């Protein structure tokens, strides 16, 4: 197998008249950590949604782990090995913390019962405590429903969910936006651990410091197009901002934007 | 004495007449108190109501059956609790095997549709249409016994040698309702098919058809319209020369009779298993007998 885990060619998404994503060519190597930056509405989340099959793309190809893929939904993507923290979090408000953490891959006993197999509540509760500790968040009662959690607590539950299960590629869309100082640090530690374990990562973030701390490479989106592909060591904050605002455009992307 | 009554449905005009007949009779009798329940055309609910009556310790039960096929279970429930039971208006299917302490007061439903249909057939002949006449039929809710029975009566009559000059153009349900009948009739008129007769499973639908025909400018002398029930609206319509035939059922008499039978059963008297009260045909000739 090649060392490229994910590759998109000409990935495009139009919403009616809105061209949210145009001709995105993107390559991610095995074990590489890449950041996606860009203005609000630049198309970052749209890009994530096309890769994970939440929406059906207008055109273009996605190659994951050597195969051309066209996921019908996020379930397919997860089964192929892509774990995602979406910007909208995807939590079930009426369920409590362990239920949400294990949503869709519950621990069960008596598995021969098919859809009626029995849940192993105790094991899930214990794993939940362990998972949450990694994010450093404080939750007074994990049996409370998600509807009663603060913005940051919800975000940590979503992240803990991703971090609890091993995968080939992790995608996080603005994971620390709602987090406090300590929690942000913990989540950054989680990301560092992924790096050590050799898992690939796509991180969408507006936080310049964080990006330079954590990733190997920075991709900049502007008005639905990729306008720069920068190695962390060959660039700096001001440079990136110039690409974001449109003051500069990467040489290889001259035709775009 | 406490008597429980379960009526098939409250919003049926005919059964309301019967109910009022019971209430009037109750007022005349001393020490009899009725408790009347609405079975809302639901067999199962009716059986539950009977069990509720038994639990409340009533002295007798009167049932106007929703479905005459379902009476076996009711008879069994009342018999095992030792409570007298009187069926009214609709003949139970287990007539032959009715337990002791149970009886039946009614008219024979088959008569109603047949009487009306046969008279309509005669009227058409009298109008000189024996060479061929065309009719529409408005049916009640198809889940309702009386609707099915009266429709069948009509079709049986026009299947007889004497009346087979009548062809049925179409039959549809107007769910006993004047409004639905009005719309349905207008729909039929709009197809432009000529017709000579309209039979409604009840008077309300017949009146709805009359209103639609009047709105379309069709002369009511040319069309024979028949219904069943002899409601006061229908009598007024007949006086106005619109409705031609309806059938009177002495429902108030049935109601009163059922109470008398129930009291006799409570007192352990000997009672006829079946008391029949006949239907009467109402036409412009004899309408005077039925006006208040």
């Amino acid at each position, binding site marked *: 197998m090649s060392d490229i885990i994910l590759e998109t060619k000409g990935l495009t998404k139009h919403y009616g008249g*809105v*061209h949210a994503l145009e001709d995105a060519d993107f390559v991610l190597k095995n074990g590489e950590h890449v950041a996606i930056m860009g203005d609000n509405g630049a198309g970052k989340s749209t890009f994530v949604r096309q890769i994970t099959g939440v929406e059906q793309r*207008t055109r273009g190809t996605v190659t994951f782990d050597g195969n051309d893929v066209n996921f019908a939904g996020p379930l397919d993507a997860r089964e192929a090995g892509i774990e995602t923290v979406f910007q909208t979090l995807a939590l079930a408000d009426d369920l409590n913390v362990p239920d949400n953490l294990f949503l869709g891959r519950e621990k069960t006993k008596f598995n021969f019962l098919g859809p009626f197999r029995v849940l192993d509540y105790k094991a899930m509760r214990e794993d939940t405590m362990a998972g949450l500790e990694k994010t450093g968040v404080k939750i007074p009662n994990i049996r409370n429903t998600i509807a009663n959690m603060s913005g940051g607590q919800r975000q940590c539950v979503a992240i803990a969910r991703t971090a609890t299960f091993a995968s080939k590629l992790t995608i996080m869309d603005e994971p620390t936006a709602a987090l406090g100082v300590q929690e942000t640090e913990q989540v950054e530690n989680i990301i560092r651990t992924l790096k050590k374990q050799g898992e690939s990562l796509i991180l969408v973030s507006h936080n310049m410091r964080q990006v330079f701390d954590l990733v190997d490479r920075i991709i900049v989106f502007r008005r639905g197009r990729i306008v720069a592909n920068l190695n962390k060591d060959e660039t700096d904050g001001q440079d990136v901002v110039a690409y974001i605002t449109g003051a500069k455009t990467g040489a290889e992307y001259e035709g775009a934007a | 004495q406490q008597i429980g009554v379960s009526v098939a449905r409250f919003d049926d005009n005919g059964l309301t007449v019967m109910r009022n007949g019971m209430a009037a009779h109750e007022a005349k009798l001393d020490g009899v108190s009725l408790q009347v329940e609405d079975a809302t055309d639901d067999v199962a609910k009716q059986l539950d109501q009977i069990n509720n009556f038994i639990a409340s310790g009533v002295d007798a039960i009167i049932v106007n059956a929703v479905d005459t096929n379902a009476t076996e279970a009711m008879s069994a429930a009342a018999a095992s609790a030792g409570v007298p039971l009187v069926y009214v208006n609709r003949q139970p299917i287990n007539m032959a095997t009715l337990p002791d302490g149970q009886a039946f007061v009614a008219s024979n439903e088959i008569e109603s549709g047949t009487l009306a249909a046969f008279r309509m057939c005669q009227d058409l002949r009298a109008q000189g249409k024996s060479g061929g006449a065309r009719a529409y039929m408005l049916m009640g809710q198809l889940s309702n016994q009386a609707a099915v029975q009266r429709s069948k009566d009509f079709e049986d009559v026009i299947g007889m040698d004497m009346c087979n000059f009548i062809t049925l153009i179409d039959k549809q349900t107007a769910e006993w309702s*004047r409004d639905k009948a009005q719309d349905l009739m*207008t729909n039929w008129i709009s197809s432009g098919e000529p017709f000579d007769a309209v039979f409604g499973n009840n008077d309300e639908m017949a009146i709805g058809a009359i209103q639609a025909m009047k709105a379309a400018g069709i002369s009511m002398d040319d069309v024979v319209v028949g219904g069943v029930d002899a409601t006061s609206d229908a009598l*007024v319509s007949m006086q106005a020369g619109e409705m031609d035939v309806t059938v009177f059922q002495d429902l108030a008499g049935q109601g009163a009779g059922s109470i008398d039978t129930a009291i006799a059963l409570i007192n352990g008297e000997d009672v006829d298993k079946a008391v029949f009260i006949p239907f009467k045909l109402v036409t412009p000739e004899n309408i005077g007998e039925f006006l208040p």
Partner: protein
Amino acid sequence: MSDTSQGTGGLTFDKSKRQWPNELNVLAALILIVIIFEILGAVFVGQSLLFDTNDRFDSIFNEARLRIIIIQVAIVGIIALGVTQVIITAGIDLSSGSVLGATAMIAMSFAQVAEVNGAPNPKAIFGPAFLDLPVIVPVMVGLGCGIIAGIINGILVAYSRIPPFIATLGMMLFARGVAQWWSSGNPVSFPTEAYAVIGAGMNPVIIFLALALLFHLVMNYTLYGKHTFAIGSNEAAARMSGINVPRHLVLVYAIAGMLAGLSAVILTSKNLTAQSGMGLSYELDAIAMAVIGGVSLFGGRGSIVGTVIGALIIGVITSGFTFLRLGAFYQEMVLGCIIVGAVALDQWQQKRAAARA
């Protein structure tokens, strides 16, 4: 909408690819259904549904049928106008049919004549002082009953936080009880001549269309309409934005109730009688019209125009069945399929529109 679509820079936006209005889909469905009936008619009964094929009427269209198509849905259509607004707030009104029934009995009791065929009215509900009243009295009584029922619905939904389904289910049972209790289930007949005019001929249709136009304007161009949509879209947001949500909900349900009361007046006038069973299951027909017309049961989406077309679809189907002389059994089966089909088509169209390049 005009063409001055604006934005604040940013992405490419292709104005020519604006959204296809939802009402056009519903209209397309209506036309499709008419075509199907025309084809079936030509094949099976050798007639045309809408066009004149025999010489009873001398014009291109079969005018009698066009008229009945719309008359038979006008009364339920008036209810549907109110139900549309309720559904847009993410509510539902199951009570409208029964409220119609109860209002019919009550209003008609104030519309009776003193003499029938020369004899005193055999069905007078009240004493002679209440006979031969001016027509305004029963109309006002009818509207009033509807409004009261609507206000109670609205208060239950808005202030007690009872789900609309339950609040109006309770009202449905209650109103049905009232309808049967009033005059102990006996029909109320013989209205005054002035009253009989209200629902005569094409009057129900004129009232229906006038109200449809009025509420179309209200929903699109007034504060009332905007707040109705906002509440249906996100009630919490509407509340936080400072809309007085409970008061507005009471207003919406009151209007829906008033329209049910008005339908009762028109229906009794058209039929010259009031019966306790009137209006039974009209609520489902009204909801079906709204939903076929593209109103979303999740709230926030829908239009009066859509509902009017939805009503026409049901009218065409009803007339079409009779026209094809389809056995009564099949009518319900096919109607069920068509309701589902219309909504499925709408859903599919919308999905496609969203995905369209």
